[in-house]
């Protein structure tokens, strides 16, 4: 699409690559750390870096939704879940299973297949982030003009999920 080569990275390229490296590194820490609270805190770093990637790709509304919902609500919920299930604080070897080779093989197989496919298919495809018009008002307009029915269905889904969560957690019958 463009004649810019891989060897002359722009500022956008550099910012995205750095944020991506932070996201991948902290995601690796999430799945390998032996302290459960550290995993939640590394998850905050990873999701925050992904929000930064959204900002670089001009998707500002998605980025702030990510910060509000993931960093604000989901991580706090996970920490509450750890507290209520008396998760081991401190170093624990009980968090991971033992079949490391098989898990590594499956993950590397997925990454290799998809990575080779993507590099082969989109080798020289460029995206233009300068000429984008995807501010929050534009996204909100398309969300409530073209996507309003899925949006409303989603609100019912969210309500029923919360009612279901309350119904599950207040059942008296102890097995």
């Amino acid at each position, binding site marked *: 699409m463009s004649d810019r080569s891989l060897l002359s990275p722009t500022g956008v390229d550099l910012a995205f690559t750095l944020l*991506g490296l932070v996201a991948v590194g902290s995601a690796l820490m999430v799945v390998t750390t032996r302290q459960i609270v550290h995993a939640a805190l590394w998850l905050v770093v990873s*999701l925050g870096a992904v929000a930064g990637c959204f900002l670089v790709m001009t998707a500002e509304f998605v980025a702030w939704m990510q910060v509000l919902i*993931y960093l604000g609500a989901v991580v706090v919920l996970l920490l509450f879940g750890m507290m209520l299930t008396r998760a081991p604080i401190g170093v624990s070897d009980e968090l991971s299973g033992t079949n490391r080779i098989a898990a590594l093989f499956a993950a590397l197989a997925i990454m290799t297949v998809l990575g080779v496919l993507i590099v082969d298919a989109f080798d020289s495809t460029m995206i233009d982030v300068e000429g984008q018009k995807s501010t929050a008002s534009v996204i909100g307009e398309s969300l409530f003009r073209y996507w309003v029915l899925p949006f409303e269905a989603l609100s019912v889904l969210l309500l029923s999920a919360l009612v279901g969560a309350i119904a599950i957690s207040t059942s008296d019958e102890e097995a």
Partner: protein
Amino acid sequence: MHLSLPLLLSVALLGIGVYGVLIRRNAILILMSVELMLNGVNISLVAFDVYWADALHAGQSLAIFVITIAAAEIGLGLAILLLLYRVRHTIAIDEATELREEAT
């Protein structure tokens, strides 16, 4: 910006999430790994939205829907885990074996 850059990041997060789901015993850590996988998918949705410069902004709308569904999933998942903890006093998934046939 190269389109393959966000797509490769998305693949990396998906693979790390798969590794976490397969290796972890603690169910809360498995939920976290699922979040990583969903984030990887979101990055590719947003990248393709920016690439096509879609008039409907389907990619970003779907990314917002995915974020919302992930929140619902975490809420329900944690409720189920708390119930499991009340019944079994552990949330290690390899000890919840009621559905497995008894070894003879």
